[in-house]
């Protein structure tokens, strides 16, 4: 039973990191999606392409350059001295990585919702005296909120499953930056397959549980509507 308790720091770190990262990805992703859905020019095409990159890039590219950018060779010293935040080899580093990889999922699902709002609806809202901010909250969010919620959940799950780039940026320090995914890696390297299986089962249960919840909520809303 003792070894069961050793599972909890990775679980806590995983949930902590993915919740913050999921939320950050939600805020940043929805803002970007709103902009991308309503503005179309050469610049936005490039921007959207860039946001999709983290979905397809090898984790090593992301990990390496984030390490360079946020570590001692980059902003690391300044961040630590000016703001007192240590990013690399600490949990904020894991949050940064997870946010970046989760964002494309939020952007794509939210954007699909936002593009449903036609020009004529926007014009009608304007005629009724609706400001930009109001238009976002009173029209945009209510129309697209299922996409936003699904994107947030997907982002959270993607953050929960993040491994490669996080390993390079945040390290694999038990009790501090070791997430569930890294604990599996560690256990496999130690040839401790029973621990690896147990953590994998835990991770799968959480992920599948969240997916079922999303599915159920969507069903319920679809019925109500």
């Amino acid at each position: 039973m003792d070894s069961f308790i050793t599972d909890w720091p990775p679980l806590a770190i995983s949930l902590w990191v993915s919740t913050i990262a999921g939320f950050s990805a939600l805020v940043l992703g929805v803002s970007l999606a709103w902009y991308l859905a309503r503005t179309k020019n050469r610049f936005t095409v490039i921007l959207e392409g860039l946001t999709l990159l983290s979905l397809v890039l090898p984790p090593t590219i992301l990990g390496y350059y984030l390490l360079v950018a946020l570590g001692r060779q980059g902003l690391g010293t300044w961040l630590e001295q000016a703001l007192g935040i240590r990013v690399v080899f600490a949990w904020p580093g894991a949050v940064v990585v997870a946010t970046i990889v989760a964002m494309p999922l939020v952007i794509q699902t939210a954007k699909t919702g936002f593009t449903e709002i036609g020009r004529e609806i926007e014009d009608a809202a304007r005629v009724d005296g609706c400001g930009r901010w109001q238009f976002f909250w009173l029209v945009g969010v209510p129309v697209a909120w299922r996409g936003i919620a699904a994107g947030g959940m997907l982002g959270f799950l993607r953050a929960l499953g993040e491994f490669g780039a996080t390993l390079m940026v945040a390290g694999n320090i038990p009790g501090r930056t070791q997430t569930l995914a890294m604990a599996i890696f560690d256990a496999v390297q130690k040839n401790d397959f029973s621990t690896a299986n147990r953590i994998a089962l835990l991770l799968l249960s959480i992920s599948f549980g969240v997916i079922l919840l999303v599915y159920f909520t969507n069903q319920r809303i679809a019925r109500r509507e």
Partner: protein
Amino acid sequence: MRKRIEKGRLVLIAALLTLVLGASSCGNWSFLINPLEISDSTATNELTVAAAADLQFAFAEIAALFEEETDSRVTLVFGSTGQLGQQIENGAPYDLFAAADRKVIGRLVELGLIEADSVSLYARGRIVLAVNRQSGIAASDLKELPGLPVRSIAIANPDHAPYGAAAQQAMEATGVWDDLQDRLVFGENVRQTLQFVQTGDAEVGIVALSVANVPEISWTLIDEQYHDPLDQALGVVAGSPRIGLARRFARFINGESGRPIMRKYGFTLPEEAPGAPGSEP
């Protein structure tokens, strides 16, 4: 309509059950109260030690003993010497670094990242030829390898793992390096290399003596004259807020409590008689 709602409920129950089952398998919920506690690295009695992968078993024992004696907590982070050194260059928050060679420690001292006066030699390692017991291969000499029906030979990556570099030197010295090129597989560190042989995915491997005593493999020492001495040095990471405790752990490894454990895993010091390490197959 009613039926559909019930179906929805079922899905909800299934979802909650999965979550509860998943979460309860870890038993302890105290992290919910203060998740930040886990990432608190300022506690003065919590030592983080970066250790070369060959120290896996020996350091686990030594750390447990040290924790008992000093009422502290030791977190061990294992990796290849090159990788851990790279992490320290990038500011990884380790207090002590026990490397598998002298070179990396020397470079970190030059960079001002390791306290120069804390550097000490704590082990001389050996490499062994490890064979998976179920592979049906019988090999006790590197020179036999080219003629054997072996598909994969695992060594640690010679570019950044000292035990991999020693393995390469030994294979070169015995003249089999070129012949075996396309059968080599590289582990990220000596621990992963050991695992390749343990699972049998590589029938044969060259690993550290200190990790070779596992049930799945049999092993034979490789003559020390075939490679540079695997002298392992350690040092306290500069700027660590726990320098005192880190120095104490360093002394502990080389002291009365640590030495017997190190010897048990086949680590000698140059002034010590090369003991008869472990038990050969």
